[in-house]
């Protein structure tokens, strides 16, 4: 699979691998934010579970 957004380094500027078009960039931004929100949710869940377990 060719995932390079460029065919030559001559004149290259910004290059976002796998995200060289607005759709893919939006998808990866959304995935990054979702991963972060999921991490926060996991911490909240872990706390709740740990506190509940301690109560038992």
């Amino acid at each position, binding site marked *: 699979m060719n995932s390079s957004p460029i065919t030559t380094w001559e004149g290259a500027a*910004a290059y*976002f691998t796998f995200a060289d078009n607005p759709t893919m*960039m939006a998808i990866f931004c959304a995935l990054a934010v979702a991963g972060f929100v999921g991490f*926060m949710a996991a911490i909240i869940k872990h*706390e709740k579970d740990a506190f509940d377990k301690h109560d038992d």
Partner: protein
Amino acid sequence: MTAEEMEALKAAFEMHQAMNVEVFYWWCTAIMFMIHAGFLAYEIGASRVKNALASGMKNILTLSVVIPTFYFFGWWIYNAFPGGLVPVDAAFALPWSTSMGPDVQDMGTGIFWAAFALFGATTGSIMSGAVIERIRLSAYLILTILVGSVVWILAGAWGWHPDGWLLLDLGYHDVGASGVVHAVAGFFSLGVLINLGPRIGKFVNGKAMAIVPHNLPMALIGLMMIIVGFFGFLGGCIIFNGGETGWTTIYGNPTNLSAFAFNTLMGFAGGVIGAYLTSREPFMTMSGGLAGIITVAAGLDLYYPGLTFVLAICGGLTMPLVGKMVEKAGIDDAVGAVAVHGWCGFLGVVLVGAFASGYPNTPEGAPEITLMGQFIGALVMAVTGFIPGYAVSLLLSKMNMLRVPSNVEEAGLDLVEIPAQPYPETVPARDIVEGTQPANENSLPANGALS
């Protein structure tokens, strides 16, 4: 030499100059990581054994939440809000801009973004020590994102950005971030502490009790590591320009690392001496080094080193006294963050007005430095930090999301939520929790000195 050779030579020189700029901020960012290594050691040491790892976990995760959120929106806030609360166009700083990723023709954006992200993480770590041993990790991280990727950088846009309204309207001068980082984070912490409340056992019948660090030497080493990290932090506050300009402050006036070196070291020494004189205690004395640097940071480019030393002594002298006042008010600031960062940061901004008034500012139309301008600027920093810290922590408290349950606090956070032990072959956490017995005869007793 032919014209072509001259052009080639010029191009090579400019490329190396641009590379030097990148190299400088790269290493400033790396050295700033030492601040977080220091906070990690210092807060683990300052905690009781039963909370040692939970305190450390906060520090580890601080970086992991500030860095991505600073990428998502923090850098945009800096560039969009220099005029106040109405954003200007700063699409180039949004995550989907071509500036915000690898670009072989952009030797600057990423390295400045990185340094600013680490400044943001520092604000979270400043709060982190104050709230140890009873805040929920999730609440801490939400508040850290707020202070590290929103609040301080908004204050930075106002007080550091070349178009910042504090600079253009008041002549605000704060080269080493006494206000935009330290005062903001210190007063943010104060707002959180009011809603969080003291640790169980901190106040008995209204009298403040000592909750001693379980590992004071580790805390002291951590504080010294923060000082090392400050050299990266303060280096990151200076602008390495290309061309013939050389070093300037973030406001564009000429300066150099030599000026920063004189005054950073004299500030450290003065702060330590001042804090020793009013405390005689190692934790406060070492914190005095931070207090001294923060007290003079706003004017690192302007002060005579002798003056710096005197001002830093004043910062170090007053810091423990302010800490006592905070404690007398019933606020449990476990490491003195409000005094060290809030008070000394506020003081540092005002002192520039008291001792360096009249210096010109370089942006067109910006007034010179004045006492009134600095005083208003310091107030803006304190209020900008305090209000969101107080409001959001109040909201979290109302939702029962701010503080751990009292039975968890008494048992110790490590025992309840951390699947590891800090010292498994010496003192298991469960053995030193108040009211429990040692697991065997070789364990240390569960006495008050350790819990």
